[in-house]
């Protein structure tokens, strides 16, 4: 998704830090978020993503640094005065109010006539397809319906910025996939800037136009989902997003065509094509994703970076299969294949105890400085 140039710094987070007693929850984070962007903060628990979100909402004040929303400095601005709304992880619906009461609650503070408030509430409920449940109480709704009420409530005031804290966390898998697209759709329709906090990398990748991966209160990488997945800038990001095979290695030669890297556990040097430069003899980590390896029972025709091994384990997931291949050196690699054709087609299928050849595209190999 293209980022509109003029409003690229709609949300400006400048050198923001947050300290709780001695614990540094957010450590010098700087970040710009464009208008109408769907931005995801991704990280494990305790990485500071929720604290950053709460600082945007105004529930926490930064210990250092500045936050600007649409050019306005947010320092000292109370949550009820910010053009920001939040969808809480627990939804935080008011149990004593009806669905319509919940959605319309924030409009009490807007300069609107009662009729306008009613219309807006109706419009919001229609947006999340809950018009027929307006008079229900939250405890009479299913989890998915509550989630949509929470979304409608947070959108009702048409905030400049909408914060979503683990928006899909409490939903089951089927509903999650459906809601994912619904949220992206509503974001597109309303044009409101969304910031989503999640620990689920799949959720972040499918929802967001850009992702920031956080660890220990710092941002490790910002980029489009494909960028972060295919070109992680560190071992942490590579390991956090998706699954990966990572081994210790050493650069043994280094020329224009690429690198020769020897990983002792793989038993042979591999050829790597990369734009990064490394010196000969440097200790590195070699990483490659399971789906970037092709697997075959015959020697591949273009045999660069070919390893041999035996199928130790095999998991069939329908649309794809996961193999655990024990190399001749004893090291085990994960290999992922897409089941593009039907399984009944006999001998092309690799299964338990088969002797197999693995080949890895030199462009798919990632090299990081330092040991794994």
């Amino acid at each position, binding site marked *: 998704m293209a980022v509109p140039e003029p409003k690229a710094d709609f949300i400006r987070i400048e050198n923001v830090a947050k300290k709780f007693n001695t614990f540094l929850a957010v450590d010098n984070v700087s970040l710009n978020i464009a208008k109408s962007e769907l931005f995801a903060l991704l990280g494990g628990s305790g990485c500071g993503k929720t604290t950053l979100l709460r600082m945007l909402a105004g*529930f926490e004040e930064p210990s250092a640094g500045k936050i600007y929303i649409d050019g306005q400095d947010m320092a000292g601005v109370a949550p009820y005065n910010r053009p920001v709304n939040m969808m809480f992880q627990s939804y935080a619906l*008011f149990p004593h109010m009806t669905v319509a009461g919940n959605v319309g609650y924030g409009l009490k503070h807007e300069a609107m006539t009662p009729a306008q408030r009613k219309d807006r509430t109706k419009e919001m409920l229609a947006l999340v397809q809950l018009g027929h449940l307006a008079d229900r109480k939250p405890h009479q709704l299913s989890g998915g319906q509550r989630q949509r009420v929470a979304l409608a409530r947070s959108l009702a005031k048409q905030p400049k910025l909408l914060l979503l804290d683990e928006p899909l966390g409490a939903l089951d898998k089927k509903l999650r996939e459906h809601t994912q697209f619904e949220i992206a759709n509503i974001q597109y329709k309303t044009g409101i800037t969304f910031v989503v906090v999640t620990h689920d990398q799949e959720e972040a990748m499918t929802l967001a136009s850009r992702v920031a991966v956080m660890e220990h209160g710092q941002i490790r990488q910002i980029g489009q989902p494909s960028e972060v997945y295919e070109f992680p800038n560190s071992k942490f990001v590579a390991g956090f997003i998706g699954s990966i095979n990572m081994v210790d290695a050493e650069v043994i030669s280094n020329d224009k065509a690429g690198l020769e890297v020897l990983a002792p556990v793989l038993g042979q040097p591999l050829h790597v094509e990369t734009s990064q430069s490394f010196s000969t003899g440097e200790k590195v980590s070699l990483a490659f994703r399971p789906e970037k390896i092709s697997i075959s029972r015959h020697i591949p025709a273009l045999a660069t970076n070919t390893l041999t091994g035996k199928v130790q384990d095999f998991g069939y997931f329908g649309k794809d299969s996961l193999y655990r291949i024990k190399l001749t050196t004893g090291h085990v690699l994960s290999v992922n294949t897409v089941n593009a054709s039907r399984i009944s087609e006999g001998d092309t299928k690799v299964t338990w105890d088969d002797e197999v050849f693995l080949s890895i595209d030199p462009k798919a190999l990632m090299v990081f400085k330092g040991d794994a």
Partner: protein
Amino acid sequence: MSDVVPKHVDSWFNRRGWRDTIIAAPYLWLVLFFLVPFFIVVVMSFAKTVSQSPPFAFLPEWPYIRWEAYNRLITDSLYIRSFFISIYNATVATVSCLLIGYPMALGITRVGRSAQRLLLMLIILPFWTSFLLRVYAWIGLMGKNSWFNVALTAAYNAVVPTSWAIDSIQMMNTNFAVVLVMVYSYLPFMILPLYANLERLDTTLNEAAMDLGSKPWQVFKDVTLPLSIPGIIAGGLLVFIPAAGELIIPSLVGNAADPMLGRVIQQEFGSNRDWPMASAVAVALLLFLVGPLIIYNYFAAKAQAGAKS
């Protein structure tokens, strides 16, 4: 288990009858020690006073009962007055307990876990001293020569013109003293159910309301207060019901000219030996207090239905 324990013993312990017995026990208790005595009191209220032991008897012929006691109850100004004084004192005490107890209960929920435990301990601490002793302590405090009274008098004299100056404040043997000591005595019964209710409230609801544009007092009005109504009702009843029938406090610090119902019942039973009249007052008081209990049960059932789903 059945290998070690002889079969007939095992089946004796596990027989289904135990469950019914356990359920029946509290009901049996209520029937024996509440319903039967209450029935006796109701029956007694229709008797007449006689000089014998026990000092009541029924009419020798049809209709055997008389309504004299109830007749006096609604015509004699002593009973009507004491009824209204009881309701008035109990209401003022309940509202005062709520006004003092609500901020305290809310305050306790807003501090750390260990501080909460300490503060709750302090709320319950007075119970470790005899109730009677605490009332006597108030008698000492309210007396004309006590440091408390002297200090209050001095403070009063300091702010009013000299022509209004007084020697001391008359606190003992007033209705004010009754309400004051009742508020002091029953405050924990207001704070504890309120605390239990407020402590359960999800504070993210407050954040959500604030996020949607409500200032702190609006958050209180729109979220905290309506969600704490079950706690207010529970605390209110726990204060109002015993306060309305209170005997000890008005007897010790109250004014004999403004008796509360508890004191009237005691006098009728005791010095007047008019058991039918005492019974009629007791029945009237009970009927009056059952009303709030029904309201409470209605709200409790409603709150439970809401919490379950």
